[in-house]
């Protein structure tokens, strides 16, 4: 199913209107509008400091944008700097999974508990049920044998896979990936991307900030190029083969043929 077909049938999963965000006097984001349909995979690329991560962090209110609005699953989470009431926001955040550059696994919990803690404390599951759910998610990403390990004992790739499982164990409907392979050794990047590809194939709605152009080309329905705002967007084909904007061209050149 292509992105345009979905548009006509369903309500958007996530909708951003005229978003603007400043840190002090520095305007990091401006005039951003974006619609993400269910099962769509949107990849955001752009030079560092272009506001990609900030935009992603706005999507679950880790950062609060001062202008514009964000709507997730038909619920406005922020409008012109005014947040949804705390309780509703927390409930909505359960549907929005976030995967961080630096993993942020809970260091005092075992792999199993890292995944089970959310379902137990937030979805009201019994310990046994939550652990069963956690085991099934961990088995899916090939870490069934490491359930008793602690994060410090895992490789970067394993940590990031656990972080993905942790996010999926909630009632996740949108996954946000903030440069998930950035902190990984090159040989570990593949195992994380593979999990993400499988997730996309299952129909998960995903917004991915990444420098992995191969992933963008293979998996994305839509690629956004950012530099403070969305300067260009289109299918991977359009962006990579025929970039319109000069800024996009120079960015792609620098990243595809470094040095």
């Amino acid at each position, binding site marked *: 199913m292509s992105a345009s077909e979905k548009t006509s049938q369903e309500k958007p999963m996530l909708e951003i209107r005229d978003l603007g965000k400043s840190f002090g006097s520095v305007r990091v984001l401006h005039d951003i509008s974006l619609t993400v349909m269910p099962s769509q995979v949107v990849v955001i690329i752009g030079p560092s400091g272009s506001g990609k991560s900030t935009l992603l962090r706005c999507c*679950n209110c*880790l950062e609060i944008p001062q202008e514009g609005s964000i709507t997730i699953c038909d619920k406005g989470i922020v409008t012109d700097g005014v947040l949804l009431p*705390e*309780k509703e926001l*927390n*409930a*909505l*955040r*359960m549907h*929005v*999974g*976030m995967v*961080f550059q*630096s*993993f*942020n*696994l*809970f*260091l*005092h919990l*075992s792999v199993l508990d890292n995944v089970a*803690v*959310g379902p137990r*404390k*937030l979805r009201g599951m019994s310990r046994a049920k939550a652990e069963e759910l956690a085991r099934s998610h961990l088995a899916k990403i090939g870490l069934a044998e490491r359930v008793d*390990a*602690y*994060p*410090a*004992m895992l490789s970067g790739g394993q940590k990031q896979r656990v*972080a993905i499982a*942790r*996010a999926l164990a*909630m009632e996740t409907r949108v996954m946000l990936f903030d440069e998930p392979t950035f902190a990984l050794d090159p040989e570990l990047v593949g195992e994380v991307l593979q999990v993400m590809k499988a997730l996309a194939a299952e129909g998960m709605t995903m917004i991915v900030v990444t420098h992995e152009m191969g992933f963008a080309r293979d998996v994305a329905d839509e690629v956004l190029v950012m530099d403070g705002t969305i300067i260009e967007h289109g299918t991977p084909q359009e962006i990579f083969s025929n970039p319109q904007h000069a800024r996009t061209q120079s960015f792609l050149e620098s990243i595809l043929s470094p040095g």
Partner: protein
Amino acid sequence: MEASVLTPVWQGMGGLLHDALVTVEVTVAALALSCCVGLLVGIARLNPKNRIVYGVASTYVLFFRGTPLLVQLFLLFFDLPQFNIMLPAFTCGMIELGLYSGSYVSEIVRGAIQSIDNGQMEAARSMGMSYGQAMRIIILSQAVLRMVPPLGNEFIALIKNSALISLLTISDLMHEGQKIIAISYRSLEVYLAIALIYLVLTTIASQALRQIEKRLWVGGMVQ
């Protein structure tokens, strides 16, 4: 056998040990109060933007950490009755030691919490936890581990500081020792004996904390 220089100590040992228990009691009660107050005040001082809570908590720390324990004890015991508030000596000593120590513990708590990587809070919040849940389930569980060594210091200081409550007519270890000295005039021997008993108490306390620390360490919590 002729009476040796240590005779007053041996004769008074029963009393000394008995009153060492009072020292232990007041210290343990004060420690419980200190930890509760320290935890609340430490968390209250995390966010300066909440002006009232931050202001009250900071004033508390300013006063109790910034003035001598002895002065605070006398204020509470001798001057509060002027306002018709009469507390038993033991209660006074316990509250005062607890509040004094709590001001230090609050800084230990605040420091430990702030040393936890912000990503832990972000991960917990983005999962849907409220601030309180994230603090309890994720942050404090990790911060406690970092609190234990400095809390050990504080606990030992508390045991030693408790000697001052003897001045409130409380019959603690120090008070009992001074009674023996008043009768026997053997201050060197008796004070050495008192020091030894305090040393035993502080050693037991620090060993207990080491055990707690060991128990709490899991999974080599270093990322």
